[in-house]
């Protein structure tokens, strides 16, 4: 598997995983990523990634009226998005296994 693609697509996978859990709008997805531990991720990166995934057909979108402020654009999964998430999971499992075995000694020492 192409691991450089994985690194570039790490945010894609994270965003897909969050949306797969529950449909969400921009700031909502950002907040859930931060809560999950991705504290360093940039706001614009998340909004841009949502947009790109939507344009590539991995996400679908619909507009919901909001009580406060403007309407919100919610994103949900498509079959293509689910497929992409599955693929990311497989690549990640492979990558993490490889890296874990490479770093095994150090990990044992640290642990």
């Amino acid at each position, binding site marked *: 598997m192409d691991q450089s693609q994985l690194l570039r697509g790490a945010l894609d996978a994270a965003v897909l995983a969050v949306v797969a859990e529950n449909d969400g*709008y*921009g700031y909502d997805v950002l907040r859930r990523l931060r809560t999950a531990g991705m504290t360093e991720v940039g*706001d614009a990166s998340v909004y841009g990634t949502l947009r790109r995934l939507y344009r590539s057909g991995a996400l679908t979108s619909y507009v919901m009226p909001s009580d*406060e402020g*403007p309407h919100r654009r919610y994103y949900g999964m498509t079959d293509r998005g689910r497929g992409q998430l599955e693929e990311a999971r497989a690549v990640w499992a492979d990558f993490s296994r490889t890296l874990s075995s490479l770093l095994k000694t150090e990990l044992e020492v640290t642990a």
Partner: protein
Amino acid sequence: MNGATTAPDDVGRYVGAVREALADLPADERDDLLLEVEASIADAAGDTDAPVAARLGPPEEFAAELREAAGFHVASTAQRAEHGGLRSLAGRAARHPAWRRILSLARDLAPFWWVARGYAAVGILAVWLGTGWAERYPFVPRFNGSAALGVALVAVGVAASVAVGLFMRRREIRSRLAVVANLALVVALWAVLVEVDNATWGSPQAVAFVEAPSDGLALDGVPITNIYPYGRNGQLLHDVLLYDQAGAPLDVPGDRDLDPNRRFVLGKNGTTLLNVFPIRYFQPGTHTVAHPDAAPAVNVPVVVTAPLIRPEKETP
């Protein structure tokens, strides 16, 4: 929403600066994206009291990050060279509203093409097999000598083509093979139309039709082979000599050898008069006309206008 009095202005200014930094993007795409980003920034602003720029950084950097993550190419010369100037140009042309309108129109008109390509597919088969075209309707291919079979095959071809078109549209299938096949059928349609054109003008019927008016009498292109003159009392007249406005005899040409039973009327010097009507035919092998008053079923109207009166010579 806390800070509602100050935050919207702050957010609006920030988003305005981001919009400026994205000025090179297609307007509809940019506006749609920023509408959503503005809503999210406003939401985020509601959670803290810090100014938007302090939390998100300079709007130019935010715009660059947004652009990068959204997969929009930076409109700098270096980037354009990297991605291929032609491709980015083609991409921008493809996003142009006029091009989209053309595409949408083409999509609406596609069913006509489905019909045409179905005909082309069957037609090119006829061209290839050399089975020819129906005589009366030269655009109908003949198979096995049968125009009816041709019509049936064209119907099947058109139905199949429309079915394929509808199927691919519903499933939103786009394939390179389909593009190639459609281009091939455009060429096929052209070849079929050229063949049909040849069949139309090359057929003997067409030649006879074109030449007919120049040889003898004709009415609306249909040759006149006989004329039945009636007098005002409704009586069929015989051996009437007819001339046109220029004094030319209205001849129905004939030939004694080709038409041995025609009763040719002769003039004083033995000349054959071909403008004598009605033309009569002898009983084969004789010089008798069996029914001299035979005529097509005509309801001769009763004439009520007074007979033509010659003006009397004025006396001086």
